[in-house]
């Protein structure tokens, strides 16, 4: 057992897998000698050497293309895209090539690769370095999508993503990098497609992801103080999606809330709410409500960014108002 930060957990998860599989390689900008701009790859060059941990030019299409070509010919790859906003510069490679080629070729090729990227806001980096874009990836058939919220999950889901034979977009949250937790020694391997009930509750269900998980938990505590019992689910993996855990909770509690950091339109919260609305309609006791960043680019100033992202307080206020009004709780 050792206390690890979220950022250290990234390197730990990668190192675990690079030790296991001597063919696994990494590439990205400033990941080798510098250990990554978020210091998530510190120590990997030293341990695994320059052939397996490679610095690249600022050529995101070339990075992802190299990952694609290598993985389809027998070399599993971890590619880093420094900020998730930059997925846009190589979106064709990801959405049109990697995601579709297995299907188009009737299963002739596989892409055992992980694209890791720093996602999300709260760092005051402004509109082009703060987006939550996990819904961009979720939209695209053929991609798996993972976004851990704790150091232990980072290690275990990193391992699961690397071992998965399909392309996984792995979102590391900038706002969680410095968070710490005890992480067990030895190999940790988690499973994709399993949500976690991080707080049991009976009155309502809140589904959250990444940085929104601690905020939802904080809101749930505040609600508990008023006698409202919220179940909080850390989704962890958007594709595959653990609809079973979600629907069970929704059926049990009768009310459903989602907390999304992405801007409102076509976020994963809409997908979850639409699933609830179709499959648990007769169990719902009131409207399902999405708490999201408004549909705006993210502002840079601390004061504005704090207003934009869902806060524990906003979650608390929204839920308690909704529960009050009409649910008949």
């Amino acid at each position: 057992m050792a206390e690890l930060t979220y950022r250290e957990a990234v390197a730990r998860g990668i190192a675990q897998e690079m030790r296991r599989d001597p063919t696994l390689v990494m590439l990205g900008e400033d990941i080798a000698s510098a250990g990554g701009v978020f210091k998530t790859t510190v120590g990997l060059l030293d341990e695994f050497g320059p052939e397996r941990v490679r610095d690249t030019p600022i050529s995101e299409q070339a990075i992802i293309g190299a990952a694609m070509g290598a993985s389809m010919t027998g070399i599993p790859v971890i590619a880093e895209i420094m900020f998730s906003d930059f997925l846009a510069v190589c979106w064709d490679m990801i959405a049109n090539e990697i995601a579709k080629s297995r299907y188009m070729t009737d299963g002739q090729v596989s892409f055992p690769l992980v694209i890791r990227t720093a996602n999300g806001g709260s760092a005051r980096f402004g509109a082009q370095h703060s987006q939550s874009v996990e819904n961009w990836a979720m939209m695209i058939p053929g991609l798996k999508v993972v976004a851990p919220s704790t150091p232990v999950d980072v290690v275990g889901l990193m391992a699961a993503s690397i071992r998965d034979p399909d392309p996984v977009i792995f979102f590391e949250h900038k706002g969680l990098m410095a968070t710490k937790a005890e992480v067990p020694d030895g190999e940790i391997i988690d499973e994709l497609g399993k949500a976690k009930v991080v707080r049991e509750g009976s009155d309502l269900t809140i589904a959250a992801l990444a940085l929104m998980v601690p905020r939802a938990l904080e809101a749930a505590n505040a609600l508990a103080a008023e006698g409202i019992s919220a179940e909080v689910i850390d989704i962890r993996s958007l594709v595959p999606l653990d609809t079973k855990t979600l629907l069970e909770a929704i059926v049990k509690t009768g009310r459903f809330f989602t907390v999304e950091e992405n801007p409102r339109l076509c976020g994963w919260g809409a997908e979850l709410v639409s699933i609830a609305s179709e499959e648990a309609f007769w169990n719902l006791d009131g409207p399902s409500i999405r708490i999201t960043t408004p549909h705006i680019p993210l502002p840079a100033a601390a004061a504005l960014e704090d207003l934009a992202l869902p806060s524990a307080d906003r979650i608390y206020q929204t839920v308690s108002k909704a529960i009050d009004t009409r649910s008949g709780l």
Partner: protein
Amino acid sequence: MPTDPRYDYALREPRLPRPVNRSLENADIDLDVRLGMYRKLHELRQFGKRAHDLFLQNLVKGTTHLSLGMEAIATGFGAAMKTGDYTFATYRGHAHSLARGMDLGAAMAELLGRENGVLGGKGGSMHLTDVSKGMMGSYAIIGAHLCVANGAAWSAQMRGTDQVAVAFFGDGTTNIGAFHEALNLAKIWRLPVVFVCENNLYMEYTPIDVVTAVANPAADRARAYGLEAILIDGNDPDDVYLAAQKALSRARSGGGPSLIEALTYRSGGHSRADPGKYRPEGEVQAWAARDPIPMYHDRLLSLGTPEARLSSIERQVADAINAATEFAKSGREPGEGSLLTDVFADGGSRWRN
């Protein structure tokens, strides 16, 4: 009506082919290799013509991009590449697929969208792939596959094999960002990859020089990547074969990437029923006179091959194309059974539990 050749492309001066380089007759190429190339030229030509016929019969739906007139490039490279080498092609990938040995019937059936197609009908004309033959895919969005070819080359380098990846693309592709990124990375990592620009003078309906800052869109940019400028006659299988050999062996021996520009011309339209009206008077005819097939036929004759031997090859190819067509037509339409398969490596497409 604008009558300015700058905008009405049909009014421009035609761009003419190079004359045949007679000295290639004496090139050091085995007769067997040459006869193999002759057969392949015919196979690619007959396949392309048949695909066109089937398109006009509405048996090939969607679209189809043929390499008629351009077959010497796929042929020359196909002959020079080794088993295990990787081919990455564009939507105009039929010739490159067949040049690596893709089954004619399975290829034709794919164009027809049949279950017995090489992709079970899922990919279609623009995505022919046969990994078992080293044909790593046909990519329909411009640029990407140059980067993917790098990856396959990198993989070969890491695995310590002597495989080479070859990416074929058009002149128009040299103006997209991915071209630039791919070339730079290939050079700095000394990857065993060969980039082959098939300069057929047009990006779809627009002459390449109208939209390109240099005269030779690939060769004039080679030095920007620390590479040698290589310009070859893409209508001469021997010239292509020799250039391919050189680039492949450089790559195999750790010498890194090459960028080759092969000058050629497509005798038909860009795709489907494009009549190619944007081409100036005389241009199509001039290039038809430099068609690789009669030229190579003459070369083989002048090297002493009997006409009978050549015509027997032609007949064999014609039979094979007919058989392939029958095979394709006999295939069933794919159905529910394959719609939801092979999105993921577990064979399915489930995104939820």
